């Protein structure tokens, strides 16, 4: 399958980069999947779990807490103020955040905590 260059960049560092066959994420309008040859695109990204299909069944995942995605010149750039990759999530903290958010009714915080837990495979 055709691949395209991809990167996930945060203010602290470049979290993921390389070639991808498919990248899925949730944009402002809903879930969207990017394949090689996608038309130029600029969109806002919601708090979501980003999956990067590397080919050969390998999938990298990252929890992204809002940001932007751009496709130009066949390259996909994902910019996020805060993002985490697998193994970085503090499950205990995310659980606490989730219960706090549920009791206070903070929808954005609840979603963030959920995505974190989903990434950690502990939801």
């Amino acid at each position, binding site marked *: 399958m055709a691949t395209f260059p991809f*990167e996930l*960049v*945060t*203010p*602290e*560092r*470049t979290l993921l980069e390389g070639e991808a066959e498919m990248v899925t994420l949730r*944009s*402002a*309008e809903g879930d*969207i999947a990017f394949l090689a040859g996608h*038309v*130029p*695109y*600029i*969109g*806002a990204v919601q708090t979501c779990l980003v999956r990067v299909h590397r080919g050969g069944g390998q999938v990298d995942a990252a929890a992204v807490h809002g940001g*932007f995605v*751009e496709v*130009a*010149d066949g390259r996909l*750039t994902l*910019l996020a*103020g805060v993002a985490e990759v697998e193994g970085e999530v503090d499950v205990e903290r995310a659980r606490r955040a989730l219960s706090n958010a549920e009791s206070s009714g903070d929808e954005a915080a609840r979603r963030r905590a959920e995505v974190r837990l989903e990434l950690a495979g502990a939801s």
Partner: protein
Amino acid sequence: MAGGQERILRRRIRSIQSTRKTTRAMELIASSRIVRAQQRIAGARPYVERLEQLTADLAAAPGGLTHRFLQEPEPQAPVAMVVVAGDRGLSGPYNFSVLRVAEQALAAHQSEGRRCQLIVIGRKAVGYLRFRGMRVDHSFTQMTDRPTYEDARRIAEVIEAPFMSGEIGSVEVVSTRFLSIGSQRVERRRLAPLAEDMAEMGRPFDYEMEPERAQLLEVLIPLLVESRLFLALLEAAASEHAARQRAMKAATDNADELITTLRRVMNRARQDAITTEIMDIVGGAEALRQAAAVEPGEPGLPGDGRRAG
């Protein structure tokens, strides 16, 4: 006797040695921090560059859009100036070179009839500008050593609302760019609206956009301002550490030189004292011998013999 001078010199040398210990320690701390600060710059730079590219692309996309961020401000519109210097001294010309550029820029704006708002980062800069009788509208301290993204967000907060509402026409930042470990330069750049050189980077593709452009821009602008401020803070921090390292290395070298010179003077003083003493003893002994050689019972030459005896 000359021993007094020797003691004074010894005391001075000891005091310089203890100063040297301090400057040497500061030099080492600064150089270890430069490395960390450099890594943080390298980590943040791709994000800021991609975000700038994205903004430029958005601005360049076909289908005209009028937005404050994409247009040149009115010539007389007030300017917000963000000045980034340090909290502490002992960093050579670091603070002052930022302040000099800031003052020049302020004077230029005022002579062209633009009012300026000052947003000042760093205790030294705040103190200096206040002392010079300037009105500091917002000040931030204790964020220059290890700036966080949150710090940048706090600064951005005081700029965004007045810019979006049109209360200020443009935002500039005066800060030190970290070019390399041996080279830093004070620069004045525009944060908002989008500067021309940045707009030129835009790639005018026919982008598919979600949500539409105006809404995207609303979310994007604060992020761009924050992240550019963040990078400016990081570069300023690295530059400050580099300036301090250089200043403290010079101080340590000067202390070394001073210690060598004073040691030399002290040793000469000590030798002089010893020589004088020897001369006295030799002179005295000689006088005694001569007195004894003259007839016994006769008193020796007055003075000499008695003193040595």
